[in-house]
Structures are given as C-alpha cells and as structure tokens.
C-alpha cells in the first residue's frame, strides 16, 4: 500500500519510513503539512496518511480537517502525537482523524494500528471497483462495447446544448446495417452478433476522437459529431459507409460483406433539439434505404 507520512523531525520521519518499508509498504515522505496536503488531494494520491500533529506551518490536524472537507475517496488518517491526553484525542477525532500513534514509534503498535486502516482502504477499493463496473454496465452495450442508447442520447443532449451555447454546429448520424435480418436468417444469430461487433469496431475506428458513437437499437447506431456542419456530417457518413463496405467480416469460416446506410441531420438544418435531430436523421436514413441501401442521405 502507498502510505504518506509527514513529520518535520527527520529522525522520526526516517524511522517511521523504515518501519513501513520493512512491512512492505511504499512510502512518500514529507517534512511539512503543506506538501503532504498537496499530495493527498491529488486524484491518485495516497489513501493512507500518518501525520505528525505538531509541525511548523500547517500542522497534521489542519491537513486532516482540510482533506475531510473535500469530496472523493476516503483517506485513512493516523495522527502522531507525543502526548497521550484525552483532550488531544477528542480534538483529533473531531478533526477527522481515524486513529493515533504515540511517539516515540513502537513498531508493534504501528503494525496493529495499520490493520484497521488497511481494512477500510480495501473495502473502499472494492466499493469503487463495483461502482465503476456498475457504471460501465449502465452506460455500455454489452455486445459491442459501445455506449448504449441512454448514454449516447445523453451525450447528444449535452453536445447539442453546448453547441447552441457556443454558437457552433453539430451533426447526428443514424446508421443501419443493410439486410441484417438476412444475415441472421442465413448464418444464425451468432453470426449476426459477430457482424454487430465487427461493424461497431469499424465504424468507431473511422471517427475522430471527439466524435461519439452508441448502439441505438438492434442494428442501428447513433453518432454525435461536435463542430460538424451539414457537409462535415455527410463527409463522416460517407467515410463510415466506405469503411464498412471495405472491411469483410470473418465468421465461422465464411467471409461476409456487410454494408450500412446512413442518415445525416445537422443543427444548421434542424436546430438543436436532440429529439428533432434524431427524427430528421431517421427520416434521412429511411430515404437512403429506399434509394437502394449502402448510401447516405441528409436532412
């Protein structure tokens, strides 16, 4: 575990550092509170701190109070004191300290007091990982790994109002795999799934990094293109169409050629309302399909 220590006395600091390193921890050491605070509030800063209470400048108590007022992951704090008085303990706990260690350092006590902190940090890490996994599940399409419908629509709503605010343009594409039902019927649903994954990958890799893509429905994909006018939207749509047409899907010993049709809607033509943009792209897509597929149309 990465542990931050702060003590203005170099002998005590080195002694504590030595004890922690012997226990297999990674130690970052500071000689004042201000330096410790800067490191602790970093996004990937240490989640475990052992702070000397009395230090010149910012003391350990103030560091503790300051990090407790911030949102974000929990930092377990042990205060080092050279007094063992009830009044200090009450004040320290009030400032948000989790535990105390009395100086001079006793390694047996140190080891014992590390354990509750390690448990709390481990619990927190589990919780963060679970939250991240749930968040990923809630925003991504399981099959293609792309954003799901809800997430890409949120992105469109955000991007449309941002563009409107900044008097910029944006565009929406709706893509649909041509004759997808035939693929499913002829080669089975596993092949259909492989096609969806393949087309998703090909389309994503033909985008700029600022562009967003999500799986909108069965075989439909929605694109959000910031700072794109009608022509820019058409260019991207044509690039996507050509990329899909060129790339063959290998699936269960057969190579399939897959094509997509795309509808384009830009804020210049349709305004900044997300639902209106999607509706216009859908109508353009319908026209492209009617024209014979593997082509694009714009609102």
């Amino acid at each position, binding site marked *: 575990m990465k542990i931050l220590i702060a*003590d*203005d*006395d*170099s*002998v*005590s600091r*080195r*002694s504590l550092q*030595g*004890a922690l390193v*012997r226990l297999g921890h990674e130690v970052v050491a500071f000689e004042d509170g201000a330096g410790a605070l800067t490191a602790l509030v970093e996004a990937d800063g240490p989640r475990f701190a052992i702070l*000397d209470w*009395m230090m*010149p400048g910012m003391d350990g108590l103030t560091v503790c109070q300051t990090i407790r007022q911030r949102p974000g992951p929990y930092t377990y704090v042990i205060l080092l004191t*050279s007094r063992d008085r009830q009044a200090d303990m009450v004040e320290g706990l009030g400032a948000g300290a989790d535990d105390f260690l009395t*100086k*001079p*350092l*006793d*390694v047996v006590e140190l080891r014992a007091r590390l354990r509750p902190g390690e448990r709390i940090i481990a619990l927190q890490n589990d919780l963060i990982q679970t939250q991240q996994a749930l968040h990923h599940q809630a925003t991504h399409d399981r099959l293609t790994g792309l954003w799901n419908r809800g997430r890409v629509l949120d992105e469109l709503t955000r991007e449309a109002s941002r563009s409107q605010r900044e008097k910029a343009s944006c565009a929406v594409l709706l893509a649909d795999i041509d004759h997808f039902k035939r693929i499913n019927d002829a080669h089975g649903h596993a092949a259909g799934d492989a096609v969806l994954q393949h087309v998703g990958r090909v389309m994503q890799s033909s985008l700029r990094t600022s562009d967003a893509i999500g799986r909108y429905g069965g075989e439909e994909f929605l694109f959000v293109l910031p700072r794109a006018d009608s022509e820019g939207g058409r260019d991207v749509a044509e690039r996507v169409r050509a990329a899909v047409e060129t790339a063959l899907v290998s699936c269960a010993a057969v190579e399939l050629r897959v094509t997509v049709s795309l509808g384009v809607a830009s804020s210049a033509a349709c305004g900044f309302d997300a639902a209106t943009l999607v509706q216009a792209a859908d109508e353009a897509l319908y026209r492209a399909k009617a024209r014979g597929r593997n082509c694009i149309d714009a609102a």
Partner: protein
Amino acid sequence: MRRPPPAPLAAFDVEALLAQVEGDRQLLTELVDLFIQESPAALAEIRRSVEVADAPAVERAAHKLRGSVRNFGGRAAGEAALSLETLGRKGALEGAGAYVSSLEQEVHRLVSEMHHYGSMPSS
C-alpha cells in the same frame, strides 16, 4: 529553581534500539547519523529562541528535538526538552536557560555515546 536530576544510566541503549528497528542495523546507523548531523542546529535554535524570548519558537524547536531524542531512548534529554516545550507554550521563559544547559549536556552525552556505537564493529 530545581534542576532536573542527571540521568544515572547510559542514554543510548543499542540493544533496545536495534529491537525497535527490528534488527535493521543500517537504518539505526542512518538514524544516528541524522541525529548527530542535525542536533547541533536544533540546540542552537532552542538557545537562540530562549535568548530572544520567542516563546512559540522555543515550544516548536523543543518539541521537534524531543521527538528526535525520544527515538533513541534519551529520557533525560527528552524531559529537559519537554520542560522547555511547556515553558514555551505557557510563554514563561524565566528559568528556561537552566533547562537549555541541561538539554545541551544530555544531547552531547547521547551524541558521544552514539560515536562510541559508531566505532564498534557492526555485527
């Protein structure tokens, strides 16, 4: 003014300290070197702060040195430093000079015992 009694025992107990660092001789040597290197400035800071009657500085400097000596046992030096720290906190530096002398004496004794340890074979 009652002077603190001189400590009758050796200030520097190598065996106890080695146990405290779990047998890490290299670390103990490093800690000793740090103390030998830094304690003169710490003592000078305390004496200067007493002379200019800067009570908060006396408290801070004495507290820091107390933390340092307590890593080596240094009970007598620690007590002298604690007295200075308390006087500093109370802002009452009358009689602090005697504690400074006592602290200097104890720290010097600790340092000379450390030098003795440093000249011993390291196993």
